[in-house]
């Protein structure tokens, strides 16, 4: 008399087949996940950040704010112009600088510097910032993002490599200049 619960030869083979395919699926899933998440895992421990030069300090007059551009430290062959990143360099005096990210702290649009009114203005949603990057008005909840910088041998270099965003990642770009 056949028993429904009894383990038959074919039933066992099928279960083994399912198990075997499960193992294969897991073996495939691991490298696939590793590949898919590589843009995150690579970024751990500031893996994307590096020091890049903005050129000699002499091209930034004291008391003024100028646009500078740098090539992102990590470049892929298909990046084209998108790896060229602009930033605002304010030379306060001597070797004291402030280097602001171009991205508005609200939603990342490119802010423009207006020397006459001493304001950075954003074309998207009307965010405005004072010359020192602090928030003046509009929807941003904080001041402009600042890149850590250092001045060596007459060159100004900044630590860059990630697009600053208003979420927690912004903490990577310290708000206070590191070398006072």
């Amino acid at each position: 008399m056949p028993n429904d619960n009894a383990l038959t030869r074919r039933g066992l083979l099928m279960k083994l087949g399912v198990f075997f395919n499960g193992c294969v699926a897991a073996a495939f899933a691991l490298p696939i996940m590793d590949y898919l998440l590589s843009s995150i895992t690579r970024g751990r421990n500031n893996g994307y950040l590096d020091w890049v030069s903005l050129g000699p300090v002499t091209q930034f007059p004291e008391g003024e704010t100028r646009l500078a551009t740098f090539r992102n430290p990590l470049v892929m062959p298909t990046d084209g112009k998108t790896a060229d990143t602009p930033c605002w360099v304010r030379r306060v005096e001597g070797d004291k600088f402030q280097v602001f990210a171009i991205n508005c702290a609200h939603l990342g649009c490119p802010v423009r510097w207006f020397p006459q009114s001493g304001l950075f203005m954003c074309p998207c949603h009307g965010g405005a910032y004072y010359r020192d990057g602090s928030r003046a008005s509009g929807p941003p909840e904080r001041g402009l993002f600042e890149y850590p910088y250092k001045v060596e041998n007459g060159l100004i270099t900044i630590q860059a490599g990630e697009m600053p965003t208003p979420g927690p990642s912004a903490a990577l770009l310290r708000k206070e200049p590191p070398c006072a």
Partner: protein
Amino acid sequence: MRLISRIGEWFDQRLQLASPIREAAEHPVPRNTASWWYVFGSAALIVFCLQLVTGILLALTYVPSAGEAWSSLQALNHDITLGWFIRALHGWGSNFMVALVLIHMMQVFLFGAYKFPRELTWIVGIFLLLMTLGMAFSGQVLRFDQDAYWGLGIGASIASRVPIAGPAVVKLMLGGPIIAGATLSRFFAMHVFVIPAILIGCVGLHVLMVLKLGINEWPMPGRIVKRATYLKEYHELTKKDGAPFVPYAVWKDMFFAAFILLAVAACALWFGPFGPTGRPDPTIIQTVPKPDYFFLWLYALLSLLPPSLETPFLLIGPVVVILGLLLLPFLSGEGEKSWKRRPIAVLTVMLIAVTLGTFTHLATYAPWSPKMNAWSGAPVPVQFLHSTTALERQGALVFQVKQCRNCHSLGESGGQRGPTLDAVAVQLTQDQLIRQVIQGGGNMPAYGKNLSPAETTALIAFLETLHPAGQAPARDASRHFALEQ
């Protein structure tokens, strides 16, 4: 003729598809559903097919590389025969598809078609809506121009606000630390492979369920849906008052679909392709990024929400809306179908339509954005300079040079970020004007550090002249006495 039918028989013997197809085509539908109200779903499907065809045609030329995508779009627009037309068809097709899907959804909601037993059809429909919007956004990214580049920046900024996982989500979305080649490649993969595959699968399920469960009958006030009796009632209805879908109802679908395709073609011919706008070069910062029209309402909302509410709204809002839509057929799976007996449903649709319409309209002229070139582009209207003193004219110059007009309009030209200043002297006394300029407040930056005392005096003197002819400027009544003391 006999040869053709013999060939047909030869194939059908092997495929055995003829009878299920005939069954599907001739399945009885309630007579009154052969209505012009029931054509939007099939029209959306036809436009989706148009998108598939034009999408493949575009892929023959398009290069999904951050360095070359923009040039390949230029080649499509200018170098390749009718490349512009295919681009225009695809772009306008996308606009029409979003609109049709929304209209279809509204009709289904108002006709109570999401109720028992069509809950799953509605839920799959919600996924179809989300996928359609996903196609619209990723398609906008593939048009790799300035708007696409900065639109991605906005997307990344929104994604970064997710608690804890924010930075990881951004890197996953961008495929790296910045918007670059990897970003475009992954949006290409989503737009061309992943989302279309899901769409095709979901469309198949959606249509299959319409065939299996039957089209929603025309809602009659008072005819209540009950789980226990509905299937029997629907079956009787189609038996008593039914007609075969083909040809009884299908001709309206066909006419409307053809009309929509012609409308897409007409828009494509008349208005041409969308962009691309400027080169996706982040160092060109003289740009005013704007999303395509179906995301304009969001663009407006993001400027008008109080800053503290923005992140909760962005993160919780979509979850609440999607959950609400998914739960709808379970919360009201029975009861009245007719819109005549569902006032709250009708009001909800009207409220949402008016809200989205208003935000979209606002976003087309963006009164919250400073006019970046108003200070150099818009002259001070002459009437404000008539019979002014030298000091007041100096003030007008300060007003212009300090870029006040980027945010404040004068004589209807200039920014609308701040209030118009045509009659500001009537609204604020001299002291209030000085305080407002120097300390800012109420969303105005403080200009104290940026104006010399002489400039401030001149500026205030000019602002004091801004009042209608016959109306005296505001003054502080106690000032006279205070000065006398």
